[in-house]
């Protein structure tokens, strides 16, 4: 799971997939750190064997090592689509949560970390290759006063060769203060 060190966002144990230096040098944020831990520390995601390998404001990267229990087709060993859906849902939700926390700013003004998924659309672009790790990136696209938009991408060897793409819409269950709102 996510480990957070003082002065850093998260620890990356996969240099091949580490995010760009620009993201890594963003200042640490206690709220974001707690969001990352709270959402990363999740029964379903843990039970699947997935881990959050990057969590910064508005963007989350996860990894799921291949294992037997995620197989959806025993003839081919291809992963069940629901597993990909689960990772994309989680990464998009975390990206939204972290973006909200950072965008709202200091803790006393934080009124809107609570949100619910309205819908999630997944395009299964190609079958996941059995035996290979699956990576998922969730990104927050836009925050409005009531609605947050996110997108997700799933890949294996390269982020330029996606296995699935997602679009998610979330509703804030506590409205942001009007002064913060863009729409």
């Amino acid at each position, binding site marked *: 799971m996510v480990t957070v060190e003082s002065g850093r966002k998260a620890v990356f144990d996969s240099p091949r997939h580490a995010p760009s230096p620009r993201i890594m040098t963003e200042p640490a944020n206690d709220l974001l750190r707690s969001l990352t831990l709270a959402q990363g520390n999740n*029964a*379903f995601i843990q039970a699947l064997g997935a881990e959050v390998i990057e969590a910064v404001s508005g963007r989350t990267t996860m990894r799921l090592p291949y294992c037997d229990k*995620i197989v959806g087709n025993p*003839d081919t060993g291809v992963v069940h*689509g629901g597993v990909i859906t*689960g990772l994309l*849902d989680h990464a998009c939700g975390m990206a939204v949560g972290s973006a909200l926390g950072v965008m709202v700013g200091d803790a006393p003004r934080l009124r809107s970390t609570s949100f619910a998924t309205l819908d999630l659309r997944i395009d299964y672009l190609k079958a996941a290759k059995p035996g290979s790790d699956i990576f998922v990136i969730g990104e927050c696209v836009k925050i409005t006063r009531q609605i947050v938009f996110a997108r997700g991408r799933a890949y294996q060897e390269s982020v330029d060769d996606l296995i699935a793409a997602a679009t998610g819409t979330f509703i804030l269950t506590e409205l942001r203060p009007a002064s913060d709102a863009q729409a």
Partner: protein
Amino acid sequence: MELLAQAARNGIPPDINALIAAVPYCAWLGLAARQQDDRIVLEMPFTPRLVGNPIIPAIHGGVIGSLLETAAIVQTIWDTRSAAIPKPVDITIDYLRTGRAVTSFAGARLARQGRRVVNVHAQMWQEDESKPIAALRGHFLLP
């Protein structure tokens, strides 16, 4: 899959519970199937590992999606008597209510069955089928 191919060859309905047992992820989710007329209803007992939000506690959105997608796939296999597992092309999940820490059910119907692709609508509910927790609309390629 051999158990599907064999059923198709013999002209008998596939054993959906045997299929679920043979698919590791479906078995891991703890799914069980029952037939209601021409509809397959999946049942998913609550277990702590399905939780996505420990505060409520609520079932993870990905688990809800997995249950709905599986309901769509088994109904497709049932209706088309396909010899292999259909492949998902795209799905849209509408989250309607919080999935609480109780047993969940899901069922699906084929809105349109073509030669190569099916359009499937699936619903998930808990105590009351008239109050769905989530719905799925998706396309699946037939083998």
